[in-house]
């Protein structure tokens, strides 16, 4: 990691910590963001002249606190008296003086993923509040107009403030619902970056790294959440294969054809260790199952072949847990690997009989096409490839399917 990159990371670590502290009392994320931005700007002029302070976070907090109190004094808002803000800040300062700066980022993440916030905005809000992303950068990653994204973020922050969304970490009884909303928001950031198979869009592909960063914050702040650890393990496993997902010409390489020598072993090892910690907590769930599936795929790196038996069972368990048609389709694809193309074809047909929605899903047709080709049913394979291409938007994947069709 380069020095500038390291500086960026340190700033990011501080950004989310400080924002969580500054916004917790007032619930005013927007005001805290403004104050923090001014504090960082002040640091850029003061530090080169006087040298960096011993405790940069405490310096930034003190500067941001002054800005926040000044802003409150100027605005004299109806809902938040200046005295109340000062009192809240004094309480936090006592905590800061007592020991290390408290890390309230988990509470901030719970606020961003609160059920009172519209679901599609939870991930953008989290990227902005915890990582300091600009609305422009978020808009680029989610392929929406910057102005529209900015307005929606402003509205979401107003909702937090006006509705009184708390910044506390909810009690364990609320976790099944509340924690999964947090995890889903983090995973949505990862998926948005991951779904750019060409990796040509730096705004989008960078999101996988940011999501892993959020996952690490979660795992460190909520080590008792088995699903939180499961999500981190899942993302690490997938990210470990990023260097193998494209060939030298930038073409998409499916998992079973990837060169395992390109997989990042240190990430796989971290994923495995994280998943072991999760399973010791004895609370299985969707993300742990998905991580375990990726773990079974990763075993190809040292076993020579993935553990297809385990993958079939895990996808079937995932289908029962989540009712996901895609999970059942993936189970069929794994059955084809374990028991042969004929058995896989039957399983895929059974999956679409149970979930007719699969007949409108590109990977369903791609799987049928592949299995028909293996079984020597060329005409059926051609038809299935056409159906698959008709349902795919991504040019790289269409090219991949077309090449397969033409090779029949």
């Amino acid at each position, binding site marked *: 990691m380069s020095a500038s990159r390291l500086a960026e990371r340190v700033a990011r670590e501080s950004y989310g910590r400080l924002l969580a502290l500054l916004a917790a009392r007032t619930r005013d994320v927007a005001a805290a963001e403004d104050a923090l931005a001014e504090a960082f700007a002040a640091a850029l002029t003061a530090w080169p002249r006087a040298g960096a302070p011993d405790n940069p976070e405490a310096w930034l907090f003190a500067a941001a606190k002054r800005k926040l109190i000044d802003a409150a004094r100027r605005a004299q808002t109806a809902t938040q008296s200046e005295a109340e803000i000062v009192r809240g800040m004094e309480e936090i300062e006592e905590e800061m003086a007592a020991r290390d700066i408290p890390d309230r980022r988990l509470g901030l993440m719970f606020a961003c993923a609160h059920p009172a916030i519209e679901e599609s905005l939870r991930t953008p809000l989290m990227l902005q509040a915890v990582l300091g992303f600009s609305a422009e950068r978020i808009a680029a990653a989610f392929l929406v107009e910057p102005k529209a994204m900015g307005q929606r973020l402003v509205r979401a922050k107003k909702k937090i403030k006006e509705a*009184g969304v*708390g910044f506390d970490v909810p009690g364990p009884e609320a976790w099944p619902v509340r924690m999964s909303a947090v995890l889903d928001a983090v995973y949505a950031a990862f998926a948005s970056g991951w779904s750019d198979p060409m990796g040509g869009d730096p705004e989008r592909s960078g999101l996988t790294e940011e999501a892993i960063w959020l996952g690490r914050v979660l795992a460190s702040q909520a080590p008792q959440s088995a699903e939180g650890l499961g999500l981190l393990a899942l993302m690490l496993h997938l990210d470990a294969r990023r260097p193998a997902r494209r060939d030298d010409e930038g073409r998409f390489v499916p998992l079973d054809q990837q060169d395992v020598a390109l997989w990042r072993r240190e990430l796989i090892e971290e994923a495995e260790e994280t998943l072991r910690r999760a399973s010791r907590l004895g609370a299985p769930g969707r993300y742990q199952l998905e991580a375990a599936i990726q773990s079974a795929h990763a075993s190809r790196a040292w076993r020579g072949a993935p553990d297809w038996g385990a993958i079939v069972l895990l996808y079937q368990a995932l289908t029962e847990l989540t009712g996901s048609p895609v999970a059942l389709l993936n189970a069929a694809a794994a059955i084809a690997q374990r028991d042969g193309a004929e058995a896989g074809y039957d399983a895929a047909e059974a999956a679409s009989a149970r979930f007719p929605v699969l007949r409108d899903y590109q990977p369903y047709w791609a799987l049928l096409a592949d299995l028909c080709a293996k079984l020597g049913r060329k005409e059926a394979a051609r038809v299935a490839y056409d159906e698959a291409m008709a349902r795919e938007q991504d040019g790289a994947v269409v090219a991949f399917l077309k090449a397969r069709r033409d090779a029949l």
Partner: protein
Amino acid sequence: MKYAVLVYETNDDFAAREDARAKDYWDGHGAYFGALQAAGVFTGGAGLTPPRAATTVRVRGGARQVTDGPYADIKEQLGGFYLIEVENLDAALAWAEKCPGARTGSIEVRPLIEMNQ
């Protein structure tokens, strides 16, 4: 923060106030009121008569228009409200969830505008 817990009731909820289910209906709200008071979060509230008793007034172009019934013909009508003071939205939502009307109608939670002292 201060919140209004607005109880929107279905036609059947309003009917339940007056038919064989009346005792259950009123006991349910009585127990809820008692729980809010015991927790020290109750600051006010009122039950409303059914929408059939409503009369709506509008002034348009300086002229008063009076019509029979509630302002809009919708499936669920405001049946009453509780005013509570709690720490945050989660606490308010937890109380709203316990309100008897939540199981059949809808409970809207809305913060009150805080007046300057």
